């Protein structure tokens, strides 16, 4: 049985690739098919994946603000809140931006550089 973390990743990959809302049942089938495609024992385990497990994963992702449920439909259909690219951009904004806490949250190899410093460094590279 894959860990919840791996399942979360697999579910997000499906939602990001699919571009449209999907029910837990559809997602379970897709997950089972993709693990079966990888073949061997993993395929067998994929078939055992319960819909309740997928729902657990979805509710965890919902709590993290990564997926949302369509209101009014039953069974619920789930979709990604924003695209993979948007989330990457969000992360990079956190890393490269100038939020006051940033320096305490993570340590960057290179902090903020001004354009003139970058120019000097480019010249340095050219001469070395």
């Amino acid at each position, binding site marked *: 049985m894959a860990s919840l*973390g791996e399942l*979360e*990743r697999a579910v*997000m990959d499906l939602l990001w690739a699919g571009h449209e809302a999907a029910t837990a049942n559809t997602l379970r089938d897709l997950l089972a098919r993709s693990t079966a495609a990888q073949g061997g024992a993993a395929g067998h385990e994929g078939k055992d994946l319960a819909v309740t497990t997928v729902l657990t994963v979805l509710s965890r992702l919902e709590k*993290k603000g*990564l997926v949302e449920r369509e209101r009014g439909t039953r069974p619920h259909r789930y979709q990604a809140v924003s695209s*993979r690219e948007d*989330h*990457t951009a*969000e*992360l*990079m904004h*956190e*890393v*490269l*931006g*100038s939020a006051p*806490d940033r*320096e*305490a*949250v*993570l*340590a*960057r*190899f*290179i*902090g*903020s*550089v*001004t*354009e003139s*410093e*970058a*120019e*000097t*460094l*480019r010249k*340095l*590279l050219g001469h*070395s």
Partner: protein
Amino acid sequence: MFWTSYFLAVLAIVLAWPVPILLSRARWPARDPFTAMVLWQAIGLAGGLSMIGAMLVYGLEPVGDNLLAGLCALAGMVLFAAPTTALGFWHLFALSAAALLTAHLVFTLLLTYYKIERQRRRHRELLALLASPSDDGPGTVVINHDSPVAYCLPGGARSVTVLSDGLMAALEPAELRAVLIHENAHLTQRHHLLLWAFAAWRQALPWLPTTRLAQEAVNSLIEMLADDVALKTESKATLIKAIAIVASGSAAPQGAAVVEAAGLAGASLQLPDGAGGAGPASTTATRVSRLLSPRPPLAGGLRAAVLAVCALLLAMPTALLIVPGLLG
């Protein structure tokens, strides 16, 4: 014990104003970042201790010959409703201020920890979904992004070093190794604890020049310490090239963000510049110039002297607060 409170007050003011300004302009910290780091910590701790101590000693002056006796008398007033007539308005004011400042510092420290941890957890959650494991080791992941970016996200056993596709493409294997060693040094030397403490110190007393100067100095010193670790296994030229490639690559595509950051930094740097001189250089510039034209580390004697000053800074307020009680 009256003179004790004056002495502590003077110490607090000296450590809050002239000392950090002088130290932030000094050039020797680049030669010995470790010693400079210890000194900044001593200044912060001794400064806070003497600030609180001065008010406490002053406020307790009428009820006890020393701090311990004073605290016992104060406990009597609070717990057993003993008469408080001995304390005048200013004494009560100083005691309340000492209590509030202590609570404020502790609370800010905890709040900052909570805020930092929350941001890191969110960041780790997204990384778990977006980044893919790298060949460079278990704690290293790669994220799909074009600018050359490398950073580490501390978190105990879940600490992770993140590299971007753009970085992997731009660097030679040796340069990449230098970057990884540098980031790993941050994690193994627990630099995030220093960053946390100094971020909280600044958050708690943002109007005090020492807190901003200390945080900026610490941010830059940890980079030098990590560079020094990378230099043990990789050549100086490799490290300089890695820094130059990442820095020149990360400035260009950001555009507005960098202009904005530079504008803000420029605005805040105008104050210390007033006295003349070129002003403090950015961390990256300092790092490169220190690698290009290295100066010898501090002589053993000088280093020992600075460390002795650190010990003295911490011992003095502590001794002034505690020793009279033990002697009397």
